[in-house]
């Protein structure tokens, strides 16, 4: 069964804020501070409905995680929303990353929520939205 949203972000504030609002909006959320944590989580069997992936991170960055995922059949199909801190990403980079969508910082929260809503079911436990 599909898991919740996996937020992979090294900035603790952003990660915590995103996790909090997604939970408030009724989504299940898992967090990882870098690619290495996320990959370990995925190899442990986690199958998130969507990964919200920051690109620039210490230890293992978004590109490295994405490359590793795409090399593993079990992980390659998991949809990924790439969050770019460096503006629009180049076409060849996008081809490598094969994202479901790209969000360019600073993005609108509503955009992210709409994307998450498209890929992930709300558990309905705490529907706190308007």
């Amino acid at each position, binding site marked *: 069964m599909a898991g919740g949203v996996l937020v992979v972000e090294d*900035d603790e*504030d952003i990660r915590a804020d995103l996790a*909090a609002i997604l939970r408030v909006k009724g989504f299940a959320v898992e967090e990882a501070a870098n690619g290495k944590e996320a990959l370990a989580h995925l190899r442990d069997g986690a199958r998130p409905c969507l990964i919200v992936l920051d690109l620039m991170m*210490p230890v293992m960055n978004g590109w490295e995680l994405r490359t590793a995922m795409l090399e593993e059949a079990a992980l390659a199909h998991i949809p990924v929303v790439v969050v770019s801190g460096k*503006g629009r990403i180049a076409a060849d980079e996008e081809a490598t990353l094969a994202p479901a969508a790209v969000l360019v*910082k600073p993005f609108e929260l509503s955009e992210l929520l709409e994307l998450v809503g498209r890929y992930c079911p709300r558990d309905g436990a705490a529907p706190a939205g308007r």
Partner: protein
Amino acid sequence: MNSPATIDLLGRLDAVAFAADKKTLRITFAAGGALGRLGFSADEATGDAQFLIKRLHPDDRERFLALLQGVAADGKERRLEHRMVSADGAERWFRTEMHVAQSEGQVLGLMIDLTDARRTAEALHATEAHLRQVLDNAPVIFFAVDKNGIVTLSAGRGTRALGHQGGQSVGRNVFELYPEETELHGLARRAMAGEELTTTNHSRGAWWDTHWTPLFDAEGRPDGFTAVSVNLTDARVAQGNLAHSNALLRATLEATTDGILVVDGQGNVVDCNARFGEMWKVPPELLTTRNDERMLAFAITQLRDPEGFLARIDEIYANPLSVTHDIIEFLDGRIFERDSRPQLVDGANVGRVWGFRDVTAERRATRRATFLAAASKILAGPLENVTPLDVVARMTVPWLCDWCHILLVEEDGSASSAAAHHHDASKIELIRRMRPDLRKSDRGVGRVIATGEPSIANDIADEMLGGALDSVPVSLQTRDQVDILRSLGLRARMLVPLHARGQIIGCIVFATANPHRRYDQDDLNVAMDLAQRAGLAIDNQRLYQTSKQAVALRDEFLSVASHELRTPVTSALIAVQSALSVGDEAPVSFLRQALGSAERQTRRLGKLVDALLDVSRIQAGRLELQREPLDLGALAREAVALLAEDARRAGCDVSVEADEALVGRWDRARMDQVLSNLLGNALKYGAGAPIHVSARRDGERARLIVRDHGIGIAESERERIFERFERAVSSKHYGGLGLGLYIVRRVVDAHGGEIRCESTPGAGATFTVALPLQ
């Protein structure tokens, strides 16, 4: 008288005897051989003696009769010359003498036929006149002088030069005639004494060649002389003109800077000027042989293309009337222009004139200008995959040298080989092996680097490179390297310093194995010019690289900065939008979390902006310190306390060790910045391991140490991280403007302190700041 014997006798005379009656004047008798001349017989004369009167020339008859009458009258002897008309009507001249015979009262006359004698005299006279005319028109002066010095003959056109017609001096004393010509008097006396002389003297504006011939009488005694003088003036003038022309030609030949050689049709050197000998370096003893073939054999040894030279000569001689103009190149680098043309005398080809002009200087000047222009163009243009030094090394071979080696001074004072070229590519590696020892500042490359003075060495012999390493005139490091130089056949070289960034950065070696090649000031000027242009190109390339790096750095910075600014903005935005998107029923904890994030991210944004402003201030030299008494230990503890939340988030334990009252005069806000930047880096790169901060007194200084156990910094990065926008880590892994350590160092510098970094990659880094307490 009428006796047959008398008549017979008279008939044998070439005369006519006659008798006339004293009273009647009638001719009574006429006889004589001359009658026959008149065409009469003796009988005719006897029959009519009066016929003599009839045969008198009508014009002379009266004179004859008057004479006869006169003789008859007074009896005195008279004579006259008159004409008779012969039987055939011809005139004949006679001289007739008449006197009175004492016995018989008769006038006797004797007529002697003068006709033949007169004709002979007339012919003689005509001959003499003719000779006289010839003499008078001859360009000579002819004098005959007798033993008393009296002029007996003076003739010749030359006498006009003496101011009188020849005849006017005849009969006068030659010494009195020309009293001023004392030199001639002496010669005349010698001729009169019997001496035969030939003399040349200058007189009355002309040159005279005189032959004096003494005359002798029958007894062999001197009897005057003749003198024939020929006017040599015209010949002298012509000769003088010729000599003048020759002198002018010779002077012109010797004054010209061209070498000139004239060869006749038989291959003999007819003439050449001194310059020719100099230009072709022909030894004087060879020059004097005048042997064209030997001189040619000598000359071609100096040429770059002797076969081509000989072939060209054959071609020229095959076309005797050709006028040619071409170029000759010498092994020693000299270049002659050669002009060859036939020598024509009155249209006949008698030989060939060769002119040689040394155009080395102008040719080289043109080549130099062309070369330098080309070099400038190449060096000023974009240099792809090649350094300016490679360009220089390649361009100078072979026209300036056989090989070119460019050496650069390294930071440790050693020399490195930056570029090398040889026309024989197999020798390039040998050249690259040669390294001067720059400590040998008294010779070779070492000296050039030490003094900045270029140098030239010509006529280098193998033996000069044969001694001990310390005795050879090069600064190479090893005997092997000197041997390489020897194996390359070094004969001459130029060393030129290479300047860039306002200092000597190296030396260019231009060398040749050509024994004829000698470097001179012109070559050196080219080399220096080239070195200067190469230096400029190096500077330009460096500036280009620097500016390219600066642009790349700026782009990187803009990328990083935009990321760095986007992150807190995004974070704050998410927090605020989260808070706004939930309803009034949202838990307080959620709102607190969101607002906390918003606050932290906004502060972070503020710090980023401060850092950018600080960079601007530092760049503009406006980092001003507000010094005040400050306790560094207390400040360290405060900073650690302030970052406690960040430390927690980073998972790092931070411990502080600080001396009490570690007070100096520092800027509080700036020192706070130093501490927070160093601690921030320690947390960022600390990999969740413990961090230790210490602030201690160390003599006159305070020593602040921040030590982490994180990813560490590679040695190659340890200096660079203190530069603007520089970071030791990939921007794909870590954020940050790359300004923290830059600002830290500048603040520490402004306080008169210093900062250093020690690290073991993978095991952490230690930053130590030392600050003067006073």
